[in-house]
Protein backbone atom coordinates (compact mmCIF):
# COMPACT_ATOMS: atom_id res chain seq x y z
CA UNK A 1 0.00 0.00 0.00
CA UNK A 2 1.32 3.48 -0.91
CA UNK A 3 1.37 5.36 2.38
CA UNK A 4 1.10 9.13 2.06
CA UNK A 5 1.05 11.94 4.59
CA UNK A 6 -1.49 14.72 4.07
CA UNK A 7 -0.35 18.32 4.34
CA UNK A 8 -2.61 21.33 4.82
CA UNK A 9 -2.38 24.99 5.76
CA UNK A 10 -3.73 27.03 8.63
CA UNK A 11 -3.03 30.32 6.84
CA UNK A 12 -3.61 31.92 3.46
CA UNK A 13 -1.47 30.75 0.56
CA UNK A 14 -0.94 33.02 -2.46
CA UNK A 15 -4.08 34.97 -1.61
CA UNK A 16 -6.28 31.88 -1.14
CA UNK A 17 -7.84 30.70 2.10
CA UNK A 18 -9.48 27.28 2.42
CA UNK A 19 -10.86 25.95 5.74
CA UNK A 20 -8.74 23.07 7.03
CA UNK A 21 -11.61 20.58 7.11
CA UNK A 22 -12.32 21.30 3.43
CA UNK A 23 -8.63 20.81 2.61
CA UNK A 24 -8.78 17.43 4.38
CA UNK A 25 -11.90 16.34 2.51
CA UNK A 26 -10.25 17.16 -0.83
CA UNK A 27 -7.01 15.38 0.17
CA UNK A 28 -8.89 12.28 1.40
CA UNK A 29 -11.01 12.09 -1.74
CA UNK A 30 -7.94 12.53 -3.95
CA UNK A 31 -6.13 9.70 -2.10
CA UNK A 32 -9.13 7.43 -2.66
CA UNK A 33 -9.22 8.14 -6.37
CA UNK A 34 -5.46 7.58 -6.70
CA UNK A 35 -5.38 4.39 -4.60
CA UNK A 36 -3.18 5.98 -1.91
CA UNK A 37 -3.23 5.07 1.78
CA UNK A 38 -3.96 8.37 3.51
CA UNK A 39 -2.29 8.85 6.89
CA UNK A 40 -3.99 11.98 8.22
CA UNK A 41 -2.72 15.50 7.58
CA UNK A 42 -0.08 17.57 9.24
CA UNK A 43 -1.01 21.23 9.50
CA UNK A 44 1.59 23.89 8.76
CA UNK A 45 2.11 26.62 11.37
CA UNK A 46 0.26 29.83 10.66
CA UNK A 47 3.34 32.09 10.91
CA UNK A 48 4.22 33.76 7.61
CA UNK A 49 6.66 31.75 5.47
CA UNK A 50 6.77 28.88 7.97
CA UNK A 51 7.53 25.49 6.45
CA UNK A 52 8.66 23.87 9.70
CA UNK A 53 5.99 21.17 9.56
CA UNK A 54 6.73 20.44 5.92
CA UNK A 55 10.46 20.14 6.75
CA UNK A 56 9.53 17.71 9.52
CA UNK A 57 7.59 15.54 7.06
CA UNK A 58 10.56 15.63 4.68
CA UNK A 59 12.80 14.30 7.47
CA UNK A 60 10.52 11.26 7.72
CA UNK A 61 9.97 10.85 3.97
CA UNK A 62 11.91 7.57 3.77
CA UNK A 63 9.07 5.76 5.55
CA UNK A 64 6.44 7.08 3.14
CA UNK A 65 5.52 6.72 -0.52
CA UNK A 66 5.02 10.47 -0.60
CA UNK A 67 3.08 13.52 0.54
CA UNK A 68 -0.30 14.86 -0.57
CA UNK A 69 -0.46 18.63 -0.16
CA UNK A 70 -3.76 20.41 -0.68
CA UNK A 71 -2.32 22.86 -3.23
CA UNK A 72 0.82 23.52 -5.23
CA UNK A 73 0.70 27.04 -3.78
CA UNK A 74 1.48 25.72 -0.29
CA UNK A 75 5.07 25.11 -1.38
CA UNK A 76 7.67 27.72 -0.35
CA UNK A 77 7.28 31.01 -2.22
CA UNK A 78 11.05 31.32 -2.57
CA UNK A 79 12.09 29.79 -5.92
CA UNK A 80 15.27 28.19 -4.60
CA UNK A 81 13.60 26.66 -1.54
CA UNK A 82 10.76 25.35 -3.69
CA UNK A 83 13.17 23.73 -6.13
CA UNK A 84 15.03 22.12 -3.23
CA UNK A 85 11.75 20.53 -2.17
CA UNK A 86 11.28 19.07 -5.66
CA UNK A 87 14.88 17.80 -5.64
CA UNK A 88 14.42 16.10 -2.30
CA UNK A 89 11.41 14.14 -3.58
CA UNK A 90 13.10 13.24 -6.87
CA UNK A 91 16.38 12.15 -5.23
CA UNK A 92 14.56 9.98 -2.70
CA UNK A 93 12.31 8.50 -5.42
CA UNK A 94 9.22 9.76 -3.60
CA UNK A 95 6.14 11.52 -4.96
CA UNK A 96 4.65 14.85 -4.00
CA UNK A 97 0.96 15.09 -4.92
CA UNK A 98 -1.32 18.14 -5.04
CA UNK A 99 -4.95 17.27 -4.44
CA UNK A 100 -6.60 20.50 -5.58
CA UNK A 101 -4.82 20.71 -8.92
CA UNK A 102 -4.36 16.97 -9.49
CA UNK A 103 -0.64 17.33 -10.26
CA UNK A 104 2.24 15.25 -8.93
CA UNK A 105 6.01 15.60 -8.85
CA UNK A 106 8.21 12.51 -9.04
CA UNK A 107 10.67 13.54 -11.76
CA UNK A 108 12.24 16.64 -13.33
CA UNK A 109 9.56 16.91 -16.02
CA UNK A 110 6.79 16.99 -13.40
CA UNK A 111 8.76 19.56 -11.38
CA UNK A 112 9.14 21.81 -14.42
CA UNK A 113 5.39 21.64 -15.07
CA UNK A 114 4.54 22.75 -11.53
CA UNK A 115 7.34 25.32 -11.45
CA UNK A 116 5.99 27.06 -14.58
CA UNK A 117 2.56 27.40 -12.95
CA UNK A 118 4.22 28.85 -9.86
CA UNK A 119 6.19 31.41 -11.88
CA UNK A 120 3.07 32.44 -13.81
CA UNK A 121 1.10 32.81 -10.57
CA UNK A 122 3.81 35.02 -9.09
CA UNK A 123 3.96 37.14 -12.24
CA UNK A 124 0.20 37.53 -12.53
CA UNK A 125 0.43 39.85 -9.51
CA UNK A 126 2.16 42.29 -11.89
CA UNK A 127 -0.47 41.85 -14.64
CA UNK A 128 -3.87 43.59 -14.70
CA UNK A 129 -6.51 41.66 -12.78
CA UNK A 130 -10.18 41.22 -13.68
CA UNK A 131 -11.01 43.65 -10.87
CA UNK A 132 -8.79 46.29 -12.49
CA UNK A 133 -10.81 45.98 -15.66
CA UNK A 134 -14.38 45.64 -14.36
CA UNK A 135 -15.60 47.71 -11.47
CA UNK A 136 -17.67 44.76 -10.16
Amino acid at each position, binding site marked *: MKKVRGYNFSREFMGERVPQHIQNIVIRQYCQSMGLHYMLSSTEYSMKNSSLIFDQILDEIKNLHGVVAY*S*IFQLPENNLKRNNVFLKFIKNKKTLYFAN*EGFKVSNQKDAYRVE*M*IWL*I*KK*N*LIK*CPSAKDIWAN
Partner: protein
Amino acid sequence: MLNFASKTERKISKDFERKGYIIQNVPDIKSLENIKKILLNSINKKIKLKKKIEPNNLLDFFHNKINKKNLNSIRLDIIKDLNKNKKLKELYYLIAKPFLDILVGNELAMQTRINLSIQLPRDKSSLLPVHSDVWSGDSAFEIVVWLPLVDCYRTKSMYILNPSKLNKVNSIIYKNKKNSSEKLYQSIQKYINWINIKYGQVLLFNQILPHGNRINNEKETRWSFNCRFKGIFTPYRDKKIGEFFEPITMKKISEIAMRYNLPKIK
Protein backbone atom coordinates in the same frame (compact mmCIF):
# COMPACT_ATOMS: atom_id res chain seq x y z
CA MET B 1 -4.40 50.99 -33.49
CA LEU B 2 -2.05 49.36 -35.96
CA ASN B 3 -3.28 46.03 -37.26
CA PHE B 4 -0.83 43.85 -39.11
CA ALA B 5 -3.22 40.91 -39.33
CA SER B 6 -3.62 39.28 -42.73
CA LYS B 7 -6.82 39.53 -44.74
CA THR B 8 -7.88 36.03 -43.64
CA GLU B 9 -7.12 36.78 -40.00
CA ARG B 10 -9.16 39.99 -40.16
CA LYS B 11 -12.09 38.18 -41.74
CA ILE B 12 -12.11 35.48 -39.04
CA SER B 13 -11.82 38.12 -36.30
CA LYS B 14 -14.60 40.21 -37.80
CA ASP B 15 -16.91 37.19 -38.15
CA PHE B 16 -16.25 36.23 -34.55
CA GLU B 17 -17.12 39.72 -33.35
CA ARG B 18 -20.23 40.00 -35.53
CA LYS B 19 -21.74 36.56 -34.87
CA GLY B 20 -20.17 35.72 -31.50
CA TYR B 21 -18.71 32.55 -32.97
CA ILE B 22 -16.92 31.02 -35.94
CA ILE B 23 -17.32 27.59 -37.49
CA GLN B 24 -14.30 26.31 -39.40
CA ASN B 25 -13.22 23.06 -41.00
CA VAL B 26 -10.81 21.24 -38.70
CA PRO B 27 -7.39 21.76 -40.33
CA ASP B 28 -5.81 18.74 -38.65
CA ILE B 29 -8.10 15.86 -39.61
CA LYS B 30 -5.70 13.26 -38.21
CA SER B 31 -6.01 14.77 -34.73
CA LEU B 32 -9.79 14.80 -35.05
CA GLU B 33 -9.87 11.14 -36.07
CA ASN B 34 -7.64 10.28 -33.12
CA ILE B 35 -9.95 12.13 -30.74
CA LYS B 36 -12.90 10.16 -32.10
CA LYS B 37 -10.96 6.89 -31.69
CA ILE B 38 -10.15 7.76 -28.07
CA LEU B 39 -13.83 8.51 -27.40
CA LEU B 40 -15.04 5.28 -29.06
CA ASN B 41 -12.49 3.34 -27.06
CA SER B 42 -13.79 4.84 -23.79
CA ILE B 43 -17.40 4.10 -24.79
CA ASN B 44 -16.56 0.50 -25.65
CA LYS B 45 -14.88 0.04 -22.27
CA LYS B 46 -18.02 1.27 -20.53
CA ILE B 47 -20.77 -0.45 -22.51
CA LYS B 48 -20.36 -3.96 -23.76
CA LEU B 49 -21.94 -4.28 -27.19
CA LYS B 50 -23.25 -7.62 -28.38
CA LYS B 51 -22.19 -6.98 -31.95
CA LYS B 52 -19.91 -4.51 -33.70
CA ILE B 53 -21.62 -1.27 -34.70
CA GLU B 54 -20.44 1.29 -37.21
CA PRO B 55 -19.00 4.20 -35.12
CA ASN B 56 -21.34 6.91 -36.45
CA ASN B 57 -24.35 4.72 -35.75
CA LEU B 58 -23.11 4.01 -32.26
CA LEU B 59 -22.84 7.73 -31.50
CA ASP B 60 -26.02 8.94 -33.21
CA PHE B 61 -28.15 6.08 -31.86
CA PHE B 62 -26.44 5.70 -28.50
CA HIS B 63 -29.80 6.21 -26.76
CA ASN B 64 -30.90 2.80 -28.08
CA LYS B 65 -27.89 1.08 -26.55
CA ILE B 66 -28.16 2.16 -22.92
CA ASN B 67 -30.55 2.40 -20.02
CA LYS B 68 -31.24 6.14 -19.83
CA LYS B 69 -31.30 6.02 -16.04
CA ASN B 70 -27.58 5.23 -16.13
CA LEU B 71 -26.70 8.15 -18.40
CA ASN B 72 -25.00 10.28 -15.75
CA SER B 73 -22.77 7.52 -14.41
CA ILE B 74 -21.92 6.47 -17.99
CA ARG B 75 -21.01 10.07 -18.84
CA LEU B 76 -18.85 10.51 -15.72
CA ASP B 77 -17.01 7.24 -16.31
CA ILE B 78 -16.35 8.13 -19.95
CA ILE B 79 -15.09 11.63 -19.00
CA LYS B 80 -12.83 10.14 -16.33
CA ASP B 81 -11.44 7.60 -18.76
CA LEU B 82 -10.98 10.19 -21.54
CA ASN B 83 -9.07 12.57 -19.30
CA LYS B 84 -6.65 9.79 -18.34
CA ASN B 85 -5.44 9.83 -21.93
CA LYS B 86 -2.26 11.93 -21.99
CA LYS B 87 -2.56 12.79 -25.70
CA LEU B 88 -6.15 14.03 -25.72
CA LYS B 89 -5.42 17.61 -24.64
CA GLU B 90 -2.73 18.13 -27.25
CA LEU B 91 -4.92 16.66 -30.00
CA TYR B 92 -7.74 18.95 -28.90
CA TYR B 93 -5.48 21.99 -29.07
CA LEU B 94 -4.30 21.00 -32.56
CA ILE B 95 -7.81 20.90 -34.01
CA ALA B 96 -8.26 24.60 -33.19
CA LYS B 97 -4.68 25.92 -33.16
CA PRO B 98 -4.78 28.26 -36.21
CA PHE B 99 -8.00 29.89 -35.00
CA LEU B 100 -6.81 30.22 -31.41
CA ASP B 101 -3.67 31.90 -32.76
CA ILE B 102 -5.86 34.48 -34.50
CA LEU B 103 -8.53 35.06 -31.83
CA VAL B 104 -6.68 34.52 -28.55
CA GLY B 105 -2.92 34.49 -29.07
CA ASN B 106 -0.14 31.97 -29.25
CA GLU B 107 0.88 31.89 -25.59
CA LEU B 108 -2.03 29.94 -24.21
CA ALA B 109 -3.45 28.36 -21.09
CA MET B 110 -5.90 25.48 -21.53
CA GLN B 111 -8.56 24.08 -19.23
CA THR B 112 -7.09 21.12 -17.35
CA ARG B 113 -10.03 18.81 -18.14
CA ILE B 114 -11.97 18.51 -21.39
CA ASN B 115 -15.74 18.31 -20.91
CA LEU B 116 -17.99 15.91 -22.74
CA SER B 117 -21.65 16.55 -23.45
CA ILE B 118 -24.06 13.73 -24.31
CA GLN B 119 -27.58 14.86 -25.17
CA LEU B 120 -29.99 11.99 -25.68
CA PRO B 121 -33.23 12.67 -27.57
CA ARG B 122 -35.93 14.04 -25.22
CA ASP B 123 -33.60 13.82 -22.21
CA LYS B 124 -34.36 16.52 -19.63
CA SER B 125 -31.58 15.58 -17.24
CA SER B 126 -28.61 17.12 -19.05
CA LEU B 127 -29.83 20.58 -19.97
CA LEU B 128 -27.75 23.71 -19.63
CA PRO B 129 -30.09 26.61 -18.95
CA VAL B 130 -29.29 29.95 -20.55
CA HIS B 131 -26.06 31.24 -19.06
CA SER B 132 -22.91 33.14 -19.80
CA ASP B 133 -19.72 31.54 -18.44
CA VAL B 134 -18.62 34.89 -16.99
CA TRP B 135 -21.77 34.88 -14.83
CA SER B 136 -20.30 31.91 -12.97
CA GLY B 137 -16.70 32.94 -12.48
CA ASP B 138 -15.01 32.61 -15.86
CA SER B 139 -12.82 35.40 -17.14
CA ALA B 140 -14.04 37.39 -20.14
CA PHE B 141 -10.66 36.61 -21.72
CA GLU B 142 -11.60 32.95 -22.24
CA ILE B 143 -12.82 31.37 -25.46
CA VAL B 144 -14.64 28.04 -25.81
CA VAL B 145 -13.59 25.46 -28.38
CA TRP B 146 -16.62 23.23 -29.02
CA LEU B 147 -16.08 20.09 -31.04
CA PRO B 148 -18.97 17.96 -32.33
CA LEU B 149 -18.41 14.25 -32.81
CA VAL B 150 -21.65 13.98 -34.80
CA ASP B 151 -23.50 16.38 -37.07
CA CYS B 152 -25.40 18.88 -34.88
CA TYR B 153 -28.43 20.86 -35.98
CA ARG B 154 -31.55 22.47 -34.50
CA THR B 155 -32.17 21.25 -30.92
CA LYS B 156 -29.48 18.57 -31.21
CA SER B 157 -27.06 21.49 -31.09
CA MET B 158 -26.62 24.58 -28.87
CA TYR B 159 -27.76 28.16 -29.19
CA ILE B 160 -25.99 31.47 -28.60
CA LEU B 161 -27.22 35.03 -28.30
CA ASN B 162 -26.74 37.40 -31.20
CA PRO B 163 -23.98 39.78 -29.94
CA SER B 164 -25.94 42.84 -31.08
CA LYS B 165 -28.56 42.00 -28.41
CA LEU B 166 -26.18 41.65 -25.48
CA ASN B 167 -26.94 45.09 -24.04
CA LYS B 168 -30.64 44.38 -24.29
CA VAL B 169 -30.25 41.14 -22.31
CA ASN B 170 -28.05 42.84 -19.73
CA SER B 171 -30.76 45.44 -19.32
CA ILE B 172 -33.41 42.71 -18.76
CA ILE B 173 -31.20 41.16 -16.09
CA TYR B 174 -30.44 44.54 -14.49
CA LYS B 175 -34.11 45.41 -14.19
CA ASN B 176 -34.72 41.92 -12.79
CA LYS B 177 -37.75 41.55 -15.00
CA LYS B 178 -37.35 37.78 -15.28
CA ASN B 179 -36.98 35.74 -12.13
CA SER B 180 -35.87 32.40 -13.57
CA SER B 181 -33.47 31.26 -16.25
CA GLU B 182 -36.39 29.72 -18.16
CA LYS B 183 -38.23 33.06 -18.18
CA LEU B 184 -35.04 34.78 -19.24
CA TYR B 185 -34.73 32.26 -22.10
CA GLN B 186 -38.33 32.87 -23.16
CA SER B 187 -37.67 36.60 -23.33
CA ILE B 188 -34.50 36.31 -25.40
CA GLN B 189 -35.24 33.34 -27.65
CA LYS B 190 -36.02 35.60 -30.58
CA TYR B 191 -32.44 36.90 -30.40
CA ILE B 192 -30.63 33.58 -30.38
CA ASN B 193 -28.96 31.65 -33.17
CA TRP B 194 -28.92 27.86 -33.31
CA ILE B 195 -25.56 26.44 -34.35
CA ASN B 196 -25.57 24.12 -37.35
CA ILE B 197 -22.30 22.29 -37.46
CA LYS B 198 -21.06 19.05 -38.99
CA TYR B 199 -18.56 16.49 -37.80
CA GLY B 200 -15.24 17.66 -39.25
CA GLN B 201 -15.87 21.26 -38.23
CA VAL B 202 -15.01 23.10 -35.02
CA LEU B 203 -16.85 25.92 -33.28
CA LEU B 204 -15.11 28.68 -31.32
CA PHE B 205 -17.51 30.90 -29.42
CA ASN B 206 -17.53 33.92 -27.17
CA GLN B 207 -18.64 32.58 -23.79
CA ILE B 208 -19.58 36.09 -22.61
CA LEU B 209 -22.69 35.72 -24.76
CA PRO B 210 -25.61 33.87 -23.13
CA HIS B 211 -25.88 30.35 -24.54
CA GLY B 212 -27.21 26.91 -23.66
CA ASN B 213 -29.28 24.06 -25.00
CA ARG B 214 -32.88 22.81 -24.94
CA ILE B 215 -34.38 19.35 -24.93
CA ASN B 216 -32.98 17.50 -27.91
CA ASN B 217 -36.10 16.96 -30.02
CA GLU B 218 -34.22 15.37 -32.90
CA LYS B 219 -33.92 11.60 -33.34
CA GLU B 220 -30.19 11.34 -32.70
CA THR B 221 -27.87 11.74 -29.71
CA ARG B 222 -25.53 14.69 -29.59
CA TRP B 223 -21.87 14.11 -28.65
CA SER B 224 -19.67 17.16 -28.23
CA PHE B 225 -16.56 18.21 -26.37
CA ASN B 226 -15.91 21.66 -24.97
CA CYS B 227 -12.80 23.22 -23.52
CA ARG B 228 -11.69 26.74 -22.60
CA PHE B 229 -8.53 28.56 -23.68
CA LYS B 230 -7.09 31.96 -22.71
CA GLY B 231 -3.89 33.98 -22.89
CA ILE B 232 -1.56 32.89 -20.06
CA PHE B 233 -1.02 36.42 -18.77
CA THR B 234 -4.59 37.75 -19.23
CA PRO B 235 -6.79 38.27 -16.15
CA TYR B 236 -8.20 35.20 -14.37
CA ARG B 237 -11.30 35.17 -12.20
CA ASP B 238 -12.59 32.17 -10.27
CA LYS B 239 -11.06 29.66 -12.68
CA LYS B 240 -7.42 29.91 -11.67
CA ILE B 241 -4.07 28.96 -13.11
CA GLY B 242 -3.09 25.55 -11.73
CA GLU B 243 -6.49 24.40 -10.54
CA PHE B 244 -8.48 25.06 -13.76
CA PHE B 245 -6.00 26.25 -16.39
CA GLU B 246 -2.55 25.06 -17.31
CA PRO B 247 -0.01 26.73 -19.65
CA ILE B 248 0.39 24.80 -22.92
CA THR B 249 2.39 27.06 -25.25
CA MET B 250 4.50 29.32 -23.05
CA LYS B 251 7.30 31.06 -24.93
CA LYS B 252 10.92 30.92 -23.86
CA ILE B 253 11.30 34.67 -23.36
CA SER B 254 8.41 34.63 -20.87
CA GLU B 255 10.05 31.86 -18.91
CA ILE B 256 13.43 33.62 -18.94
CA ALA B 257 11.80 36.90 -17.88
CA MET B 258 9.90 35.26 -15.03
CA ARG B 259 13.15 33.87 -13.64
CA TYR B 260 15.06 37.15 -14.07
CA ASN B 261 16.04 39.40 -11.19
CA LEU B 262 17.58 42.84 -11.65
CA PRO B 263 21.09 43.04 -10.16
CA LYS B 264 21.13 44.42 -6.64
CA ILE B 265 23.38 47.34 -5.67
CA LYS B 266 24.72 47.63 -2.14
